[in-house]
């Protein structure tokens, strides 16, 4: 599903440039649930943003679902993001003046789905994350866990190939984190490929594979026995 070969990325800071990714090689198959770990500043977000086409690598090759992602203009990138990728952010990034249902429907709007279908799908995905009752509420009326679940519903709404989540539980307490992970595991069980950036070992252990980054290189890449989150959730 994802093939990454020798990706480099650096940020220019005035005169000097800071090398953040120094040759990343990574293959992720369909249906995997991968945790990307590493200390702060090791380049996790940078890698995820490149995989999400929110940012561009300097050198290297990135193939997503058989499509070489290279020299994309913004319009092309927008189409690919819309078709292939769903994002979940640490800070939720919901649009604050839109209701839960409207937020979830937004990627479908950019897919030019008609209005009725959009509403139906949005509601279906909200029900899937257990927030059917909350469809008409604004983000400001919801808890962090609820907001993150709306964000997950939104990421799923456009039926992407890959779900990318940058510290999805970073702003949540342990209990809520496990609820969110439970949801992510369920989605993964249905076959969706998911990448999660996280700091927390317990969250990482709920994935099927852990990739550790240090100073812009992968230092470890292991398959793990998945801990099911459901057992911690009543």
């Amino acid at each position, binding site marked *: 599903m994802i093939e990454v070969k020798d990706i480099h990325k650096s940020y220019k800071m005035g005169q000097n440039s800071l090398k953040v990714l120094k040759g990343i090689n990574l293959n992720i198959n369909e249906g995997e649930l991968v945790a990307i770990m590493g200390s702060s500043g090791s380049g996790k977000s940078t890698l995820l943003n490149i995989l999400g086409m929110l940012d561009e690598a300097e050198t290297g090759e990135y193939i997503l679902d058989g499509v070489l992602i290279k020299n994309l203009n*913004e319009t092309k990138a927008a189409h690919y993001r819309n078709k292939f990728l769903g994002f979940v952010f640490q800070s939720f990034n919901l649009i604050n003046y839109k209701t839960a249902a409207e937020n979830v429907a937004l990627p479908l709007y950019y897919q030019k789905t008609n209005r009725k279908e959009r509403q139906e799908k949005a509601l279906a995905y909200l029900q899937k994350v257990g927030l059917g009752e909350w469809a008409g509420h604004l983000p400001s009326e919801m808890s962090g866990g609820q907001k993150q679940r709306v964000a997950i519903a939104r990421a799923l709404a456009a039926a992407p190939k890959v779900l990318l989540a940058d510290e999805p539980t970073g702003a949540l307490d342990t209990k809520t984190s496990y609820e969110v992970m439970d949801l992510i595991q369920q989605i993964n069980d249905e076959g969706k490929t998911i990448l999660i950036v996280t700091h927390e070992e317990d969250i990482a252990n709920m994935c099927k594979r852990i990739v550790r980054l240090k100073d812009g290189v992968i230092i470890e890449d292991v398959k793990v026995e998945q801990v099911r989150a459901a057992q911690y959730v009543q």
Partner: protein
Amino acid sequence: MFNRDRWQEIFQTISKNKLRTFLSGFTVALGIFIFVILFGLGNGLKNTFESFFLNDATNLIWVYRGRTSMPYKGFKSNRQIEFKNDDIADIKYNFGMYMDYISPGINRNQKIKYKNEYNNYSIQAIAPGYQFAEKVYLMEGRFINEDDTQNQEKYTVIGRLVRDDLFGKKSPLGEYVDVGGSMFKVIGVFQDDGGDNEERRIYIPYTTRQLMDKNTDKLDQFVIGFKPEIGYTGAMMFEEKLRQFLKDKHQIHPDDRRGIFIRNVADNLQQNQQFASVLQIIVTFVGLGTLMAGIIGISNIMVFVVKERTKELGIRKALGATPRSVIAMILQESIFITTIAGYIGLFAGILILNSLGVTLEDYFIKNPYIDMQTGIFATVILIIFGAIAGYIPARRAARIKPIVALRDE
């Protein structure tokens, strides 16, 4: 443009972001409103000016008399010049080829009475040609004619406001009014664009006035309507010849600048038209200035709006919004708001102008107005420039990498 989904999206952002909508709408409405008011007041100023100077015929030479300031041919200085009926005859004889008409004038203020109503009015004793000089329009009846002056008839043509004062709504034709002790028959009612003062007077035959003044043949002044085809230079030449002729006839020193005064409307007209066009230019500049201010205002607000939305735009892009759709959304929203607000400002301005009406006449602003075309033109200009002003930040926002936009707090 007519995509229902897009409109729904826009209505939602507009209604959910009231402050933003209000700010940009208010700027545009205010800009247009001020434009309309200033432009209208400017037009009012122009109207006043035109009613002062441009409501009489423009082919006129007025001749007034005064006192000499130089001794000449045995006469002392400070001699009062008198005009008499033979001056009319002489002018007609010598200058007939330049002239359409000539009318003498003798003005008095006297009490005019009808039944129990009376008031003081200006009574102007004139010849028939005066009708053309003052551009008098008859509402009822007729003006003084040659027979009336010939026969020294006690006939009068009264101003609209005199009729209103003395007769109310009833027709005065055939009624008799008391003018300084003599009974005059009303034969006409006139209107004059020159303002209230010119409608608060009555006209009588000059010969009748002379009869009342112990059968004198003296006159106060003349007005001559020269043939328009002689043109500006012809009029100036005519004026000069007339001056020489009258000075010679009344034995006034050729260099004496007093004694006889001539006001040539052709000459005034040229200056007045220049002044009117200067006024027009000022009005136009004020209008353009306001529009510019409005455009700058809306540009600033668009920059602010886009800045405020940076993060939202980043989210939308992460969800698959193309740069095009981002630009289209911002522009369509801004055009929609400016259009609505622009027309609100336009009609508010027109409403205020209309309600002002005559209240500002004391400040030389008469009938302020703006023609629809100018108003709509200004509004459209503001909308177009608002859109251009919105396009630049919108395009920049559309180009920002989503990752940068998402980081924006």
